[in-house]
């Protein structure tokens, strides 16, 4: 045990000593993530694709909806500036792939953000309160789950017309269900943890417990799931576009481009290959990042 002089020494050092910065679990995870070569490589590639998508208009002399009557459905050609070639309407494929990247990435990020906000809040509330509240909330999720997604999307399109905003809503509305289930599961096990009980015993309000104690501790799996949701959403959007339910001409997405390319696969391979390569590369990158994050956030599983 401590004697008096030690205690005073402690007290004195209290005022004198500089506060030491701690190593948060987030920082540890970041360090581990940056040690993962595949994840870092993926982040760099994704960064480049995103950057290209943002500055797209500066990179090409052509606009995405500009028709070059001299070159209709021509292969890649460095001399005339159509480095990825042109499509059946004589539009530059390079700039269209980058505009497609804008739409695909935006759909991926926004729909995931929607699912994140709704799913995390919903799941945390259901899991934290448990009992009847949990049963009712999760049965509602089950009901939504059982609705046929395609039917839902087609209905939306029929009623409100084709609209890029609707795609965000439709995808977000579906993706949050899984997110809510994941968060609820995590919260259920977290609820029994002693630090939550300690907060209860102190009289911290439920709202604050959820936002201060529960959500920060479920973010690990949530972030991992998020990085895996983004490619899933991009893929679903592509699939919708492939079916003709996606974005409207002249705007485009990778799905639309692939769909167009697939129709002329024998005559003009480039129309399929370029958008497909970009899509595949992006999906790979997100998956590698997700993997890296999982290892970084939960080192026990390695």
């Amino acid at each position, binding site marked *: *045990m*401590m004697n008096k002089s030690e*205690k005073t020494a*402690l*007290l004195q*050092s*209290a005022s004198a*000593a*500089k*506060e*030491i*910065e*701690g*190593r*948060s*679990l*987030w920082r540890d995870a970041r360090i581990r993530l940056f040690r993962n070569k595949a994840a870092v490589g993926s982040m760099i590639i994704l960064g480049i694709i995103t950057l290209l998508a943002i500055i797209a208009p500066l990179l090409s002399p052509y606009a995405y909806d500009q028709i070059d009557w001299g070159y209709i459905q021509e292969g890649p050609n460095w001399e005339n500036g159509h480095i990825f070639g042109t499509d059946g309407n004589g539009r530059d494929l390079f700039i269209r792939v980058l505009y497609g990247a804008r739409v695909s990435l935006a759909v991926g990020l926004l729909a995931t953000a929607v699912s994140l906000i709704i799913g995390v809040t919903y799941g945390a509330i259901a899991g934290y309160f448990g009992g009847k509240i949990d049963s009712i909330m999760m049965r509602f999720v089950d009901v939504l789950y059982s609705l046929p997604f395609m039917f839902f999307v087609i209905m939306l399109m029929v009623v409100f017309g084709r609209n890029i905003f609707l795609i965000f809503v439709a995808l977000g509305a579906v993706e949050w269900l899984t997110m809510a289930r994941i968060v609820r599961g995590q919260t259920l096990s977290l609820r029994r*943890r*002693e*630090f939550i*009980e*300690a*907060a*209860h*015993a*102190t*009289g*911290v*309000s439920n709202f*604050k417990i959820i936002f*201060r*104690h529960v959500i*920060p*501790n479920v973010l690990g799996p949530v972030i991992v799931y998020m990085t895996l949701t983004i490619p899933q959403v991009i893929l679903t959007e592509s699939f919708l576009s492939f079916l003709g339910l996606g974005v409207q001409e002249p705007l485009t997405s990778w799905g639309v481009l692939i769909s167009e390319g697939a129709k002329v696969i024998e005559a003009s391979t480039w129309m399929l290959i370029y958008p497909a390569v970009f899509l595949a590369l992006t999906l790979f990158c997100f998956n590698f990042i997700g993997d890296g994050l999982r290892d970084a956030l939960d080192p026990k599983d390695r």
Partner: protein
Amino acid sequence: MTVMTTAPDKRDNAPILSVRDLKVHFPIPGKGLFAKDRPLKAVDGVDFDLYPGETLGVVGESGCGKSTLGRAILQLIAPSGGQVAWLGKNIVGIPHRDMQPLRRDLQIIFQDPLASLNPRMTIGEIIAEPLVTHKPELGKDEIKTRVKRMMARVGLLPQMINRYPHEFSGGQCQRIGIARAMILEPKLIVCDEPVSALDVSIQAQIVNLLQELQREFDLSLIFISHDLSIVRHICHRIMVLYLGNVMELADRDSIYANPKHPYTKALISAVPIPDPEIERNKERIVLTGDLPSPLSPPSGCVFRTRCPFAQEKCATDVPTIDRVSETQEVACHFHNSI
């Protein structure tokens, strides 16, 4: 330094906490689709008083309901029956709003020191949380000053305020837990096995710290533990629980010198003594078998299935709690003859 070895004088003080016939029954879904729920009687009619500045030990084996009892007292688990009177007023079933201000005086310390701290918060934030919750009017600087003062008081370097729980050892984490419980200067702390997850060399540090804090702040402690040697050291009175029932309640000297209940005797004799001569030659009462399921407790005396002295009467009659002396109560039909 002198240590209070006897309980504070009860006659001068009203009890700070009175527990009467406290019951916690958990409904367990019955087998079969339409079967009724069966009650799991985790705590089944517990009575005791706790006086200011006193430490009550609650001992028993796992599954005896001691942790449930501690949480039921703090209203963290809603009791199914009985009363908990805090400073003379019943707090069982009172609205959340009325309970809130009382939480300032009622705190808890947990067994697993690391699990009881939010891994995403700095220890400064953890210790400050009760202050932020109950005294938001204090400014940031004042809260920080108080947190640092409390850290120093429990033996933590105040410059560690921005560190995270995983950067500390088990003993230090328990000190953080104690600082959080002490920051509002409560009147009662329920200590749920506070040292059993710690190394032997650290246990004594934490026990000493708790005793110092108790003297300094006139704290009452409910010390839940399965370790009877620690309990002998820190507690003034000891309550022995078995399957949610009180077997014996007595002051420390009586219970260790002269245990009346066969279960208490068995518990005490089962604790290994770190001295080869004594340990190898001591007399022991060895209990056979395991704890029965609390879903179907034995009839009569709940201890009878493992009691070496059980007789017919034990299966039929529930023993009442007999007061054998001023300081000792026991629930056994035959405490005089065994």
